[in-house]
């Protein structure tokens, strides 16, 4: 892995040729034996990077009330961990970030392909965002189309300000990009699973971010 130099606009850049770590160097659930190719981003690294994003967010938004909008289902782990780190900072530093957490469920992948349409499952009424500082927390930004559509939907409810935190952002040549304000890792266009990111609902119960194997893709295909 390589890393661009720090600072709040930095992100950890993972090069195209990074193969990931061998599975034998880490632990993972027995039931995924054969379904994974490599460990792409170990859980501990995700946590350490998330801890830093929390600090960046605190530096920017500390002492303002924010509403965290967690994008389910994939965003749930990143959101839970990010919020934990922000809470730790809130109780241990002079600044404090009062937060409310809310959830929105989006569906946009079929097998391993992102679709363009934004499909909100369940409650669409986001009027509780009116006049608020909103931080959208998403696991992965791929083509950027979903995020763009979501931003449009959120902005219609007239929040005071909207920022986006994305754990992973794909480096895609189409460059539709609506780059999040806070980025954990910039990754090549590979289909990754784990840390709540799924392949047809599988792999959400895996704590590292991994690359799925061909066997895995076939086994859990719809």
């Amino acid at each position, binding site marked *: 892995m390589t890393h661009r130099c720090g600072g709040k606009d930095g992100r950890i850049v993972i090069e195209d040729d990074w193969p990931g770590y061998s599975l034998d160097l880490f*632990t*993972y*659930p*027995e*039931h995924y034996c054969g379904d994974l190719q490599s460990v792409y981003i170990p859980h501990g690294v995700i946590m350490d990077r998330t801890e830093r994003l929390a600090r960046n967010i605190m530096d920017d938004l500390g002492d303002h009330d924010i509403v965290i909008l967690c994008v*389910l*289902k994939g965003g*749930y*782990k990143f959101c*839970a961990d990010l*919020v*934990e780190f*922000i*809470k730790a900072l*809130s*109780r*241990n530093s*002079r*600044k*404090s970030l*009062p*937060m*409310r*957490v*809310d*959830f929105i*469920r989006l569906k946009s992948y079929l097998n391993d392909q992102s679709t363009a349409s934004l499909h909100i*499952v*369940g*409650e669409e009424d986001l009027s509780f965002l009116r006049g608020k500082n909103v931080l959208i927390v998403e696991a992965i930004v791929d083509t950027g189309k979903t995020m763009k559509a979501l931003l449009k939907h959120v902005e219609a409810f007239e929040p005071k300000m909207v920022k986006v935190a994305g754990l992973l952002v794909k480096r895609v040549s189409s460059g539709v990009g609506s780059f999040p304000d806070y980025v954990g890792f910039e990754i090549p266009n590979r289909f990754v699973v784990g840390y*709540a990111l799924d392949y047809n*609902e*599988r792999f*959400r*119960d*895996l*704590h590292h971010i991994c690359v799925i194997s061909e066997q895995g893709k076939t086994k859990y295909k719809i």
Partner: protein
Amino acid sequence: MVRNGARRKSGKSDCPTARGRGVQLGISDEEQGYDLDLFCIPKHYVNDLERVYIPHGLILDRTERLAREIMCDMGGHHIVALCVLKGGYKFFADLLDYIKALNRNSDRSIPMTVDFIRLKSYCNDQSTGEIKVIGGDDLSTLTGKNVLIVEDIIDTGKTMKTLLQLLKRYNPKMVKVASLLVKRTPRSVGYRPDFVGFEVPDKFVVGYALDYNEYFRDLNHICVISESGKEKYKA
């Protein structure tokens, strides 16, 4: 704090943790909790809380044990973990993290998929107990599966009873409920979840995702709210 509550009859005895199952951590009516100055509290809540009732670390340690008991009971078949938002989400995340840790460190491992639902009462009149499930996948995905419902607190038990009736229609293989807290209240309809973290008196507690008008979800200990807190965050 009081340690053991009533010991219920446990089922399987082949599992090493069976002898502990059914025991819950009971907190007595007289329990006062801890002074706020003994722990770290977010600056913005310092005047809104009375006491720390259940420290975060204790919640985690208890949850770790529940994870093991769940593995014992439900292991061996695909589990659908159903999170009841919004209050259930912290407990859900931490419980699943412990189950995942067991999965990757032992010979037994349960594939788990997750889902998130919100429950809405049909009307403000709570005595009807009717609920609507919003936001989850099609409930037919539960057919033939072991379902683990994860909730933050069971009060009267009416909501959970109603939810269980509703889910029965989809023929899951097994449905179990894990609740972090169960209230000791005369208004209880007698429902007991399968896995209980703490049995608590009928006090209004906040924190660890339990809210008061959407506030305090971002507090990691379970605390008793103060009078000024109640006023400040009144609806």
